[in-house]
């Protein structure tokens, strides 16, 4: 089995992402799978950024803590990461390529491609496609010639694609025929705004950046009421600003989809790092009692499908749908080769303003069936009961979708429970071992299957990228079952597969 981890490091602005991109694209063309983790501080120029690019002949969804190569665009990278090398690992610096200026990164990628033993033509095709600057081919030539072949990677027949979570959410929205996306830039979801904005005219949609998140969400409700299919995107701080309007959604029943990509918190926290700390927030944000749907995809392919389900459910029930992700899923690049389900049709069948003879009124006040305010006790109670009834209908409808997934050894008595972006590391850590992995995708409503699976297991282990084990708590609330074994990580970094494997061993 091939499994290589390549760390690419440098200052912000030196083009480390280009290195990962060139290597990834070449490897994908060569029939391999890749996973690219991005680690960068909130700095535009300078500082220290690095990616860990993992390559395998099997599908992977995480990186390892020790690497086989360090590709260094500056000296600092060597100092910081030389201890991350595996035994026999190597450092390649861009020193000898400095004459190529900004193309030094191309030379560095080429050097690694040679080491892997990949055909020069595949590399050159890629460089030609990616970088129009004429100096890039000279740099590629020099880089390629600077090394000798160490691995003779064979060409394979796999045909994977590369996708990050942000782009995948955008694809899911486009598959749902989104009309308008309202978003105020905030890491880690800014790239979703960029993606939807980039081709908006051809895509027949509009990406609008208003003066802030409060505006974004109220605009979205206004546009949705007028008959458009809308989504807002943000991260924790921006989401908190939207909360009053989420409650307005609950009262007015105007369809709304929210894409929430969490990062390290509380507050401004770690803007460019990852955490699963906002699950409680997504489940509860907004005053008063009203139904909602919270879905947490664990891979880009799931981002595409689950975003579409979020649109479908929101429109069908006049409900709030939240797609919950985090920096690790939103900004890491995953290869995948699974087929995406045919998108569900999202149709606006509501009465909207503009219809002759119809007056459509939606209200933030408790209201009668015409949308006119009331303080009547009987209507107040009936409306509250109807909101609960709507939730029961949502629960029924969600059963049509994959609310959980079972991975790993199907008859194992060792059950791992997790959600969202930890999926990749969990799958890689339990590969070939005696574990069953229950991935929760619907955080609300929660599947009844979870309890059944828990009752079948001997040992249950909760894996979450947060401090308090938030999924564990909601499972306990729903099932009465407490999960004794918890592997929690909350330093802003995602799990690596080897680290997780070790932690699992300790519990076993």
């Amino acid at each position, binding site marked *: 089995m091939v499994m290589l981890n390549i760390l690419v490091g440098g200052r912000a602005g030196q083009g480390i992402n280009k290195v990962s991109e060139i290597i990834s694209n070449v490897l994908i063309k060569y029939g391999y799978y890749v996973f690219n983790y991005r680690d960068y501080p909130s700095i535009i120029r300078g500082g220290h950024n690095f990616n860990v690019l993992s390559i395998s002949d099997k599908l992977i969804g995480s990186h390892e803590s020790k690497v086989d190569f360090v590709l260094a665009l500056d000296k600092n990278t060597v100092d910081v990461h030389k201890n991350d090398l595996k035994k026999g690992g190597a450092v390649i610096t861009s020193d000898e390529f400095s004459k190529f200026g900004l193309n030094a990164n191309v030379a560095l990628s080429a050097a690694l491609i040679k080491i892997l033993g990949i055909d020069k033509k595949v590399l050159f095709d890629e460089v030609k496609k990616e970088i129009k600057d004429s100096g890039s081919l000279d740099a590629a030539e020099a880089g390629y010639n600077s090394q000798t072949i160490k691995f003779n990677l064979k060409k394979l027949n796999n045909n994977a694609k590369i996708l990050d979570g942000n782009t995948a959410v955008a694809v899911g929205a486009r598959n749902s025929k989104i009309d308008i996306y309202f978003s105020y830039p905030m890491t880690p979801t800014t790239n979703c705004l960029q993606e939807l904005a980039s081709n908006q005219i051809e895509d027949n949609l509009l990406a609008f950046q208003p003066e802030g998140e409060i505006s974004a969400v109220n605009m979205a409700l206004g546009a949705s009421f*007028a008959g*458009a299919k809308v989504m807002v995107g943000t991260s924790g701080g921006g989401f908190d600003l939207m909360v009053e309007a989420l409650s307005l959604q609950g009262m007015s029943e105007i369809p709304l989809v929210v894409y929430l990509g969490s990062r390290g918190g509380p507050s401004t926290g770690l803007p460019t790092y990852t955490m699963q700390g906002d699950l409680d927030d997504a489940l509860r944000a907004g005053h008063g009692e009203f139904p909602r749907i919270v879905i947490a995809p664990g891979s880009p392919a799931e981002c595409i499908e689950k975003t579409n389900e979020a649109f479908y459910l929101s429109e069908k029930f006049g409900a709030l749908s939240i797609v919950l992700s985090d920096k690790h899923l939103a900004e890491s690049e995953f290869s995948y080769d699974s087929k995406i389900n045919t998108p569900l049709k999202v149709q606006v069948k509501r009465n*909207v303003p503009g219809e002759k003879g119809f*007056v459509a009124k939606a209200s933030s006040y408790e209201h009668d069936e015409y*949308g006119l305010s009331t303080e009547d006790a009987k209507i107040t109670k009936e409306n509250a009961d109807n909101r609960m009834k709507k939730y029961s209908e949502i629960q029924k409808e969600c059963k049509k979708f994959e609310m959980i997934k079972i991975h790993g050894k199907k008859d194992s008595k060792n059950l791992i429970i997790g959600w969202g972006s930890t999926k990749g590391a969990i799958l890689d850590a339990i590969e070939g071992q005696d574990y069953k992995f229950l991935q929760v995708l619907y955080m609300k409503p929660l599947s009844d299957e979870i309890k059944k699976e828990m009752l079948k297991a001997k040992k249950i282990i909760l894996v979450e990228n947060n401090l308090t084990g938030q999924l564990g708590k909601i499972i306990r609330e729903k099932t009465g079952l407490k999960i004794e074994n918890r592997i929690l990580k909350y330093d802003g970094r995602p799990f690596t597969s080897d680290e997780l494997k070790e932690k699992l061993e300790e519990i076993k």
Partner: protein
Amino acid sequence: MKNAMKRERKGQPLATDVNPTWCPGCPDHMIFESARRAVLSLMKQGYKRENFAMVSGIGCHGKIFDYLNLSGIYGLHGRAIPTAIGMKIGNPNLKVIAFTGDGDTYSEGMEHFIHACRFNPNMTLLVNDNQSFSLTTGQATPTSQQGWKTKTEPLGDFNKPLNPLMLALSAGATFVARCNARDIEHTQKIIEEAVKHNGFSYVEIIQDCLIFNPEALKRDKMIYKLTDKKRTFDEAMNLAKEFDYNLKDGKIPIGIFYKTERKTLEEEWPQLNNLIKKNISWKDLKK
């Protein structure tokens, strides 16, 4: 959601059958009547009733949502403006009127006011300015007279009042007007002009609050009507300066201060232009 057309009051088109709960004599009744007559008059001039949509903020002013029988959203305190802009982006063929208060627009939702002037969406903003948070029983707003003592500000409001017309002008509003709530005919006429304006039309409607800020009553004799003449930006600014909201002295011009043309938000976006040209909404767009 049922069709509220069924709730139309007999003999009073565009009014619902809900009885207004504004205080007796409150100018909000008169603003309602001006708005109702303005829309009726516009309908006679060819505008379609179904193409009107309203958004209200929260406050005494906002209650108009339950009384005026047009489609729309009874929104959040301070957020009527973004809700209305969203409605316009969601269907640029709608004629959207936002009904708000001074607490709503100049306090809680100030940022939206400034940006709406910049964005220039083709919609109308009415601000019922009673210089008081009245539904919360009378506290000072940004336009209250300096020194006003309320239960929550027993030492008096320390701040100089904001001049919202000067602010709107400098933020780029393309239509700036002021009315007196108790002059129903004039207010109706200005609302009609505002709706017809291609761009963001802002109408400040000064009104008294008989219960909490009766001092505002004193200003009647200061009010005078502007002529219809077209004005430069500087002329409009100078007129706006005539009244400082302290209710002590000066003159209070009412009428249209400033009117100019600039590309609207809808005209800037090709996607929205396309919908306008085809006279359809996103809902009808084949994708």
